[in-house]
């Protein structure tokens, strides 16, 4: 057995739908990961702080509000500032293709669109983290 994968699943921004985030959190748990779920309406500051306190390997962000182009970079910046620059960040939500490209250029590991099979997320994370 490899090292335990720890993931923080967070829901930044103002929209109040966390069903998707919860489904992903559960799927990752069922795949044997330790998932810290932090709930709705999280500020980038709180997310980054929680991620370093929990020493997670990955942060998964669910963003439906349209604010992804500010939230992702801000959270990644804060992670770096706090000494968590090696934490991988991925996301999910309704994000236009050209934005996805830009975010991935910026260092977001992957953006999963709506209706993604959770198994794909699991295998993506396992491959990235366990190689």
């Amino acid at each position, binding site marked *: 057995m490899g090292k*335990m994968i720890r993931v923080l699943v967070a829901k930044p921004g103002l929209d109040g739908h966390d069903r998707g985030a919860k489904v992903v959190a559960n799927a990752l748990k069922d795949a044997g990961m330790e998932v810290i779920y932090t709930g709705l309406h999280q500020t980038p500051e709180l997310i980054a702080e929680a991620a370093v306190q929990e020493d997670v390997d990955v942060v998964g962000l669910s963003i439906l509000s349209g604010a992804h182009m500010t939230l992702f970079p801000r959270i990644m910046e804060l992670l770096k500032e706090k000494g968590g620059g090696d934490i991988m960040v991925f996301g999910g939500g309704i994000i236009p293709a050209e934005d996805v490209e830009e975010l991935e250029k910026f260092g977001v590991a992957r953006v999963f669109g709506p209706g993604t099979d959770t198994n794909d997320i699991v295998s993506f994370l396992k491959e990235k983290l366990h190689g």
Partner: protein
Amino acid sequence: MRSAAKLDKIVDDFRAGNTAATGRLLSIMENGGPEAERVIEKILPDIKGIYRIGFTGPPGAGKSTLISRLASYYRKQDEKLGIIVVDPSSPFSGGALLGDRVRMQNLSSDPGIFVRSLANRGTLGGISNCTDEAVDIFDASGKDVVFIETVGVGQSELAVAEKTHTVVVILVPESGDGIQAMKAGLMEIGDIFVMNKSDHQDAGMAAREIEASLKMKRVEEGDWEPRVILTSGLKDEGVDRLKESLDQHRKYLEDSGLMKRKRREILYSRVRSALIDRLDRRIRSSRRITELVEARMEDVYHSRISPYTLVHEIDSMIKIE
């Protein structure tokens, strides 16, 4: 495994107050082994014997909500807090969903508070087996008090009493909780009982029931008398009285000398369990013992020797004294 230099760097960053380094050390404690031991050796001079409060009670009783309220009362007195929240790992996947931070969101922005979620990774007793080591990290980082939240479902949760100085049992008025608590032995371990969700109408009644059952226990002159406090974590009611009772219990522990005794007991049980772990590893990695067991198990199987005879044979190979 990390190189010694890398580990030293993490410890240095931790000493400088870096949050990520503290988080990393907590993971090292969780994973145990020689790295964890090395870290403990290095931070030993900074460990003072931090005050530990355990919070237990049935799932959904409002433990996390109440803890986050209570935290602000400690912060008002400028006491720094470490909070450990233990949740069970799934016995099927080994994974865990750690959701307590949802109720503690407001705490993450306070540099005087550090919250860490731990999955129990299959340990019996409902409390992670690295609890002592995690507490040491908080202790050495200059925290004044550590809160430990565990889900109390049945006998196994009583372990929290063995790892803390004060135990707060959090109950809710919902049907039969009092009875459940008595069955589970929670009545024996609580120093302070909280009837939470006092905004529910049956709370006063439920609190009196618990009070009545506590009265049936004899308390010796000068001993601590367990008490019941009504709170609403949701509305922040009664939390001030909980804080008062906690202060009184802490003072009682100090004045009676019980604090010192409990600290010794916690440390001694730690020595014992680390020793047992080590012996177990030594026994299992010994070729001679493994060979003996393989040869003699056949005799045990056919009742030619009893299991105890085999144990005596192994024991005489270890020859500690």
